[in-house]
C-alpha cells in the first residue's frame, strides 16, 4: 500500500466546524452578555458612579463578573469534549482517517471562540469604564481606575483556562451532570470568590487582583501622602482612624497572564494525552516553562502588601 502524507488541514477544517458550533451556541453569548452587563452596566450611561461599600468594591466587582462567561465556557467545553468519550458514536469516529489526536486538537483550537468572546467582553468593559472616567475606588471621588491591558489579558486568559479545564474534566469524568456541577464549583471558588485568592495564593489561582492596600498610619506626612495613591482618609477617627494607600501591581498581573497561558497549554497536553494515550511534547514543555516562569516572575515582581 502506498504511503500517505497526513494533511494538517483536516484539523483546521474540523476546528472551523467546532468553532461555528460554538459561535451558534446561545449559552456562550448569554455568558458574554451577562459578564459585560455586570462588569460595565453601572458605567453604561457615561456617568461616574460613586464608590459603594468597600473602598475597592466596585473595582473588584469587575472581576467577579467573569464568573458568567467562565461557567458558560466550562460547560460548553465539557459538552463538546464529552462527545468524544461516548462509546458508541466513538466507534464511527475512530475508524475515520482523522485520528483522536487531531479531533482533540480541533476541539481545543475551537476554544478561540470563547476566548475571543472574552476579549470582546474585556474590550467592551474597558471602553465603557474609560468613557465613564474609570472605576470609583476609595473614598476620594477623584480616584478613578481604568482596567489595564494586563488585567484585560488575565480576564481573557482565565476564559481560555476555563475552556481547557472543561475539556480536561470531560475526558476525566464521563458524567455530564457531574461536569456541570464541577464547573459551577470551580467558577464559584475560583472566580466569583476571587478574594480568597490573596497573595501568595493568587500566584496559582485564576485572578490575581493587582490592587493591594497599605496602612499609612493616623497622620502620614504630606510627602508620604504624595507617594501613595490614597484610597482612604479617616473620615471617622474612631472606627477608621488611619489613612490607606494602594499599590497597583500591573507587572505581576502581566506575569500572571503568562502563568495562565502555561496552564492552558498544560491542560491541552493533558487532554490530548487522555484522547490518544500519548503526551504531546511541545505543549507540555512549553506549558511547563510558561507556568513555572510566570509563577516565579509573579513572586519576583510583586510589590504589593498582601492586603
Amino acid at each position, binding site marked *: *500500500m*502506498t504511503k500517505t502524507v497526513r494533511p494538517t488541514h483536516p484539523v483546521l*477544517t474540523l476546528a472551523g466546524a467546532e468553532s461555528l458550533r460554538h459561535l451558534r451556541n446561545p449559552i456562550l453569548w448569554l455568558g458574554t452578555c451577562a459578564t459585560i452587563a455586570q462588569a460595565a452596566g453601572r458605567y453604561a450611561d457615561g456617568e461616574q458612579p460613586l464608590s459603594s461599600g468597600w473602598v475597592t468594591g466596585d473595582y473588584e466587582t469587575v472581576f467577579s463578573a467573569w464568573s458568567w462567561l467562565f461557567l458558560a465556557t466550562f460547560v460548553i467545553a465539557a459538552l463538546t469534549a464529552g462527545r468524544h468519550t461516548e462509546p*458508541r458514536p466513538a466507534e*464511527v*469516529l475512530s475508524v*475515520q*482517517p482523522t485520528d483522536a489526536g487531531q479531533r482533540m486538537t480541533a476541539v481545543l483550537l475551537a476554544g478561540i471562540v470563547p476566548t475571543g468572546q472574552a476579549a470582546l467582553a474585556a474590550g467592551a468593559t474597558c471602553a465603557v469604564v474609560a468613557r465613564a472616567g474609570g472605576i470609583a475606588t476609595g473614598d476620594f471621588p477623584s480616584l478613578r481606575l481604568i482596567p489595564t491591558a494586563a488585567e484585560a489579558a488575565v480576564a481573557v486568559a482565565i476564559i481560555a483556562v476555563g475552556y481547557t479545564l472543561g475539556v480536561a474534566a470531560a475526558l476525566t469524568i464521563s458524567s455530564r451532570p457531574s461536569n456541570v456541577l464541577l464547573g459551577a464549583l470551580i467558577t464559584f471558588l475560583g472566580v466569583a470568590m476571587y478574594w480568597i485568592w490573596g497573595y501568595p495564593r493568587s500566584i496559582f489561582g485564576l485572578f490575581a487582583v493587582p490592587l493591594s492596600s497599605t496602612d499609612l498610619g493616623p497622620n502620614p506626612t504630606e510627602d508620604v501622602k504624595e507617594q501613595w495613591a490614597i484610597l482612604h482618609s479617616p473620615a471617622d477617627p474612631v472606627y477608621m482612624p488611619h489613612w490607606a494607600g494602594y499599590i497597583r501591581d500591573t507587572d505581576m498581573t502581566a506575569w500572571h497572564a503568562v502563568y495562565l497561558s502555561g496552564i492552558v497549554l498544560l491542560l491541552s497536553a493533558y487532554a490530548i494525552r487522555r484522547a490518544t494515550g500519548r503526551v504531546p511534547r511541545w505543549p507540555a514543555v512549553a506549558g511547563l516553562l510558561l507556568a513555572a516562569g510566570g509563577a516565579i516572575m509573579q513572586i519576583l515582581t510583586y510589590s504589593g502588601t498582601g492586603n
Partner: protein
Amino acid sequence: MKTLLDRVDKRYGPATALTDVTVEFRPGVTALLGPNGAGKSTLLRILATADRADRGNVRVLGGDPTDADDRHAIRARLGYLPQDPRFYGWFSAYEFVDYVAILHQIHPSSRRRRDVRRVLEAVDLTGRMHRRMNRLSAGEQRRAGIAQALLGEPHLLVLDEPTVGLDPVERLRFRRVVSDVAKEHTVVLATHLMDDVAGFCDRAVVLQQGIVVFDDTVDALAAMAEDRVWLSDAPDPTARHWWRTGRGTYRNIGDPPPYAATTPPTVDDGYLELIDGGAFLPGRSQ
C-alpha cells in the same frame, strides 16, 4: 486490493470471539450470518479497523491495519456502520453526516457538501436532514448512519445489521444503493434478515461460535436444505424444525418421511439446516 482474514483469532478476556477464521472478501455483497454471539460484529470491527486481531494476518484493501500509514489509507476508503451507533442527539442529520465527512477528510468544502447531500439523498433523508437526530425515528437514524458510511465512495463498506428498523420501501432503496457500490467494490454486511440475503447478496459466510462454518454462494446456502423441506397440515414429529406458515400449512425441516413431497428450500431453510443447534428456535422438536 485484497481484503482477507487469515487464521485470525480474537478473544475478549476468557471469551473466544473468533477462532482460526480465514475468509477473503471480494467485490460484491457478502452476507455475514450466524446466531447472536457468533462473532459477526467482532469480525466486522476487525475489518473496519476498529479492533485488532490477537493472532493471524489481516489485510484490508491491500493494506495492513496495524501499520499507521496503511490504516490511514484504509480508513480513507472505508465506510462503516456499527451495530448500535447511537449518534449525537443534538446534531441534525445534516450536521452529523457533515461532521463525519470532515473527519473523513473530504475536501474542499464544496465537494464535501455535495457528497453529504448525495448520501442523504441516497437514503431519502434530505426532507428531514435539518431535524435533530433525537427527533428522528429509529429507522431515520439508521438511514443517517447508512448515509455516513456511504461518504467518500468507499471501496469497502462494512455494515452491521444495517436494515434493522427500515420499512420495506427503505430496505429496497438500501438494496439499490448498496448494489450500486457492490458493482465495483466490496460490501460486507451482517444481518439476521434472510430476505436481504436472498434479495441482493452474492455470497454468504456463516459463523458459529467464532468459527466459519460456511462460505459459498447464497444459492449454495439454500441448497444445504435441498430435499429436506416439506409442507404438512400438522407439525411433523420427524422434523428437526417446523413452523406454521401464513397459509395455515406447516413447514418442516429435517429428514422427510417417505410419504412427504419435498419443496424447494429457501435461504432460511438452508441456514437453519446448517446451524442446527437450534435451541433458540421455538419450533424445534426435542
